[in-house]
């Protein structure tokens, strides 16, 4: 029995067990405090769908050997540019969504290529470089947002040049577009069918990609570069492909996220998004060397569900202090990120 237990703990991972335990504790508290559990579940599902694709972007990055892609903000920025173009062209609804993705693809591919080239130059310390590339790209784009020649009154500053900090997507019927597609209720729980379906579709696509010739080569290049070289696989090239796919998924991910959120957040917005995605996949059981779709699903669920449930619970404890909501969110979110990063260990 005891042996059974330890082998179960080993295969599931102690870190994940602790996180799962924490989640169950939060759920129990939520019920105890008589919080609206159906609503918590609904918003958990929404947040999972919204963040899922960004977490998925980590899979090709980790598999190809560049590690958790802290530079996925590059993809996020290109996705935002794509969305701005779609708004500028006055696209609506699904057209706007698809358009935003299509417009962002070439940018994401080019940026991903350059970023991959850069990462090939710093083998061994990719995570560090990625973090700083992410930060500086976001900062540089703050200037970019002011200079880009977007004219649509929906997003330009009323006075002067450039685009606003947050841009509402209501006018383009983009807000909650996927969330409301084919959504239905089970009791008082809302199932955002379209959103979840799109997320799963992306997962399926990545899964198929990882089973293609290129995907298999990429995996080998990431798992054991020396083996890959000996097997006639061009390691640098496949690392670049992995980086590009990750960047593209980042672009798609932010568009999915933005439609769920209802706003595009520019300037500071993308700064810390990579950390959320990295933390989620690590909690899901991925290491800095191995990641799978299952890690994405488990990790996104645990991370987002904890955030959703933890906040109202924390607010009950600190009921008198109105401003505690935001503070507790930051504490919980970054606490989970730190915890996840300390558990990367692996072999």
């Amino acid at each position: 029995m005891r042996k059974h237990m330890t082998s179960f703990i080993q295969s599931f991972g102690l870190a994940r067990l602790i996180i799962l335990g924490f989640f169950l504790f939060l759920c129990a508290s939520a019920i105890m405090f008589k919080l609206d559990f159906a609503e918590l579940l609904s918003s958990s599902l929404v947040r999972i769908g919204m963040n899922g694709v960004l977490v998925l972007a980590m899979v090709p990055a980790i598999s190809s050997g560049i590690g958790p892609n802290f530079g996925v903000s590059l993809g996020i920025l290109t996705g935002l540019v794509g969305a701005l173009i779609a708004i500028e062209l006055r696209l609506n609804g699904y057209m706007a969504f698809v358009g935003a993705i299509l417009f962002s693809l070439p940018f994401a591919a080019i940026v991903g290529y350059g970023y991959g080239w850069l990462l090939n130059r710093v083998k061994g310390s990719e995570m560090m470089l990625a973090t700083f590339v992410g930060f500086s790209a976001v900062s540089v784009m703050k200037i970019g947002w002011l200079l880009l020649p977007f004219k649509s009154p929906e997003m330009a500053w009323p006075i002067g040049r450039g685009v606003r900090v947050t841009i509402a997507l209501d006018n383009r019927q983009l807000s909650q577009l996927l969330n409301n597609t084919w959504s239905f209720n089970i009791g008082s729980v809302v199932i955002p069918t379209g959103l979840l379906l799109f997320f799963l579709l992306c997962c399926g696509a990545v899964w198929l990609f990882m089973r293609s010739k290129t995907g298999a080569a990429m995996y080998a290049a990431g798992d054991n570069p020396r083996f890959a070289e000996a097997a006639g696989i061009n390691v640098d090239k496949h690392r670049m492909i992995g980086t590009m796919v990750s960047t593209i998924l980042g672009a798609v991910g932010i568009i999915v996220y933005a439609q769920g959120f209802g706003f595009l957040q520019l300037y500071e917005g993308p700064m810390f998004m990579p950390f959320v995605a990295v933390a989620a996949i690590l909690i899901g059981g991925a290491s800095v060397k191995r990641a799978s779709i299952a890690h994405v699903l488990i990790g996104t669920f645990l991370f987002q569900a904890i955030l959703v449930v933890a906040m109202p619970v924390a607010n009950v404890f600190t009921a008198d202090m109105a401003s505690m909501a935001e503070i507790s969110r930051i504490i919980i979110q970054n606490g989970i990120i730190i915890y996840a990063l300390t558990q990367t260990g692996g072999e």
Partner: protein
Amino acid sequence: MAEDYLLQMHGVGKSYYGTQVLKDIELALKPGEIHAIVGENGAGKSTLMNILFGMAVIHSTGGYEGEVLFAGQTADINSPQRAMELGIGMVHQEFMLLPNYTITENIKLNREVLKDNLVSRVLGEKLKSLDMQTMRADARRALDSLDMGIEEYVKVAGLPVGHMQFVEIARELDKTNIKLLVFDEPTAVLAESEAAHLLRAMERISQRGIAILFITHRLDEVMEVAHNITVLRDGRLVAQRAAADTNIYELAELMVGREVEKLSQRTDHSREDVLALRLRDFVVDMPGELVKGLDLDVRKGEILGIGGLAGQGKIGIANGVMGLYPCRGEVLVNDQPLPLNDTPASIRYKMAFLSEDRRGVGLLLDSSIEMNIIITAMQNQGQFLHQWGPISQLNSKAIRAHALKMIHDLDIRCTGPTQIVRRLSGGNQQKVCIARALALNPDVLFVSEPTRGIDVGAKRLVLETLVRLNETLGMTIVMTSSELAELRSVCDRIAIVSEGKIAGILRPDDSDVNFGLLMAGQKDRQGAASHA
């Protein structure tokens, strides 16, 4: 009687995880004696020295058997510190020096001579200053005793390799209680004149009454300086001779000799004029295994062995041909020039490679057996794929079928084709590597150290598999191995590599003397050897 000896070892043995690597070693050393220990790689020389020096590898794996007496007393040497206290010094093969310190500082490191100053009188021991003058004088004395002209205040960085070696020796000599010095292959990195200088220094040291254990495989050096010689082979003591009673040929024979068991009564089908591979002026820049302008012909259909001592370049050949390390020169495969430094091209020219670094280069340890078997063929030849234009998907059915066939044919012991390779034993991992090479349908198969880290029973299976491939498929096999016996049991011809070049090509049934001499780099004396 016993008190005459400085060091005595009785029945010393060692096993790692049940594998006996050293057994029943007897050794006795008088003060002032130079005692050489010779043997091939893996003969147990290093293990013996690790025991003598109390290294952690020995004690963390269960200690050793037998008894070590130092100066007539049973010595329980359980740490290098203890060994140093007893007066055992070691000159390492790789230099343990701080490049940006001066020679004096290196010699005196952690044994500095201190003197009082104002602050230390008040605040104590820790703040004493260095007595540079005395330290310099000490260093000078140690260097002089080696007849070294170099200045003691020069920084170590930039010194010629030979001089660094002497700084190491000077450091050991400077220790006041030094009684026994161990030289671990000291001449391996030295040029000839430096080596000669070192041998002179060793003689001078021994005249001061310090005993020397000299580990080497250069037999001429042994004959030159050693008083007594111990030959190890496969972890056993083979012979002990006084230098006066033996000669270089006998030593070579003792070092190599063992009963060679032919695995199969195969006949050599190859013909001298049909070449599978032709190397001319082949240079490979593989760190530690440099190949320096080597010529080699591999006949179609033969099993060619490549032997030689570690570090001489035998490993570099296959790695160079497969494009894993930068190389230049001329390589003809079936009379076609091979593009160099291009692994996919080498695979396209129908060559496959089993790396000597099985776990590092040879396998995706965390992937399934079937993935390991098919990935090279899939990537390079498009096998095991469904292909629709640019879109491809793994053909799971074909992969599974092929993997099951291979598991059956090669008798890979596993729970199934999806088992992770890391969990397999060494022998079965090697079979997975062979299966991967076979998936490419190669004409030429390079096999490096195929039995390294594999237990005895499995060794035989792996070798038999190779012979079978050669006989049934007519595959040309180039097998590189440090174990001469293994080469002699399966190969048609054996090329011995020394200092990056082919020292000679022998038949497997040639005499032990010839093998021993070629391996020890005694190329010029080969003629003499055949008369001996």
